[in-house]
């Protein structure tokens, strides 16, 4: 119903000077209500800001704060209007003079107010509900992303630790264990090479030991040659002596000739032996030279290999140490970031509390509309319409509260701003974080 229809319809007087009798129009309230329009506008503006901030991933809390402050101010306006005992002096003067006011003349009435609130309240409640939904969705999405980041950090740290760790725990695949095993294997290769070189050196020494036998053979050949010469000289003397003996020495001369032949033959054999020994000696000398050259080269190879392996291992160790250090830095940084994100996530619990507060505000809007309906029903029954009593209304509102800061706000024992700060910062009021064991 339009608030300006019919002058015979009594206008709701949420505020009036006499609490016991309904006195008709109270156009003064229009002036008072209009004073609270900015709060309503603040509520709507806050809702718009909140929606924009949430949509762009901006500071959702700022928009939400606008909404809550606007809603609280509006509720404050409604409470002021419903108090029968707080008439302003000019209102009292106007009532005492009996002069009608402009709004009374215009025909505003209780059904009009009922219509007004039934139109406006659901819109405000809708904005609050929308704000709450967007806040829940945005914070939910935020916590989900944070949760994903924490999980990724966990995986990165685990992978880094696994790559770095010593092999005992992960089948020997750790970087440090791989390095240690490579160092051991390469050390064995160098040891094998050194062993081979040592074997060759030992063999060389044995070959060089053959020289002693060559020298002995040379001595023996010289002895054979000397014996051959002396035998030949002796056979020559025997031939001379045989020729002196004449016919009697003929046979002896033959023997002496045979002895000389044997002496010559042994001398020739000695010469051949000497030649062969010289060849063998030359072969041994050359073999020794070749073996010495080989041993020297292999020693050089082993030394070069050892130096190369040591260099490679040093580089590898340097790289490993750098990786281990970098992994440790990564792990520490990841741990720090994870702790920061976890802490930030814990702070996001404010959304649950804000959501509950807004939900209670929505419930109180519904209750307010019911109260207006009840008052209108009383008016239609013809009974005197009693002023709206805030006490039962607030008592019912109190029943919906779950947080101490809400109750404190209702009792007037805490400033709204402080209360809001407490819910965001967690601990100051309401026993936040307290643990009770049963």
């Amino acid at each position, binding site marked *: 119903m339009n608030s300006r229809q019919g002058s015979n319809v009594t206008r709701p007087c949420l505020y009036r000077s006499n609490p016991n009798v309904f006195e008709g129009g109270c156009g003064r309230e229009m002036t008072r209500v209009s004073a609270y329009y900015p709060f309503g506008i603040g509520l709507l503006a806050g809702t718009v800001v909140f929606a924009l901030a949430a949509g762009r991933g901006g500071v959702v809390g700022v928009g939400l704060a606008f909404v809550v402050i606007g809603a609280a101010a509006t509720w404050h306006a409604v409470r002021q209007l419903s108090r029968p005992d707080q008439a302003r002096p000019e209102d009292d003067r106007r009532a005492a003079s009996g002069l009608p006011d402009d709004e009374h003349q215009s025909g505003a009435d209780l059904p009009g107010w009922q219509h007004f609130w039934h139109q406006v309240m659901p819109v405000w409640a809708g904005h609050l509900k929308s704000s709450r939904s967007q806040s*829940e969705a945005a*914070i*939910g999405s*935020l*916590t*989900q992303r*944070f*949760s994903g980041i*924490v*999980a990724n950090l*966990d995986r990165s740290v685990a992978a880094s630790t696994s790559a770095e760790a010593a092999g005992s725990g992960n089948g020997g695949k750790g970087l440090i264990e791989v390095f240690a095993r490579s160092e051991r294997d390469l050390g064995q290769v160098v040891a094998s090479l050194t062993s081979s070189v040592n074997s060759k050196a030992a063999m060389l020494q044995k070959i060089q030991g053959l020289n002693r036998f060559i020298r002995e053979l040379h001595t023996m050949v010289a002895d054979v040659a000397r014996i051959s010469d002396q035998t030949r000289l002796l056979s020559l003397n025997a031939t001379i002596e045989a020729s002196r003996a004449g016919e009697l020495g003929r046979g002896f001369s033959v023997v002496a000739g045979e002895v000389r032949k044997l002496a010559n033959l042994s001398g020739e054999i000695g010469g051949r032996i000497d030649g062969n020994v010289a060849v063998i000696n030359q072969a041994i000398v050359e073999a020794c030279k070749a073996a010495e050259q080989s041993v020297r080269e292999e020693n050089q190879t082993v030394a070069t290999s050892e130096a190369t392996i040591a260099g490679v291992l040093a580089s590898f160790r340097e790289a490993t140490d750098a990786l281990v250090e970098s992994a440790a830095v990564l792990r520490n940084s990841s741990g720090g970031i*994870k702790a920061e994100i*976890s*802490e930030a*996530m*814990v*702070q*996001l*619990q*404010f*959304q*649950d*509390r804000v*959501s*509950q507060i807004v939900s209670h505000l929505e419930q109180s809007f519904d209750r307010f509309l019911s109260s207006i309906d009840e008052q209108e029903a009383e008016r239609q029954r013809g009974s005197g319409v009693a002023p709206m009593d805030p006490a039962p209304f607030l008592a019912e509102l109190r029943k919906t509260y*779950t*947080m*101490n800061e809400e109750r404190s706000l209702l009792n007037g024992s805490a400033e709204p701003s402080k209360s809001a700060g407490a*819910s965001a910062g*967690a*601990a100051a009021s*309401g*026993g*936040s*974080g*307290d*643990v*009770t*064991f*049963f």
Partner: protein
Amino acid sequence: MAKTILTVDDSLSVRQVLGTLLKSAGYDVLEACDGQDALSKLKGQKIHLIISDVNMPKLDGIGFVKAVKQLPTYKFTPIIMLTTESEEQKKKEGQAAGAKAWVVKPFKPDQMLGAIEKLVLP
């Protein structure tokens, strides 16, 4: 073997904050958005501890705790109530229903993990 914890809360952000905290501490986590959902999640699972909100749609926390205590498998499973409620009367209701601890939101991670360690059997 990691212990499994069921978190019951109609607030997605609270469930996710709890989930992240508990997984980081080495627990497996199951989530439910109200008492009814939680009762259905209990079937066929081995749950070592339950963390439940109080004010939830469909089936509230107190009703849920009472229902859990009727289940032979979960009769002795410890339950922590995690709620914005801090009134003594509500705490007494939780205790009477069978909860083992009452934590007021917003919780502090150390206190929550301490309470869990105290209640979960080794």
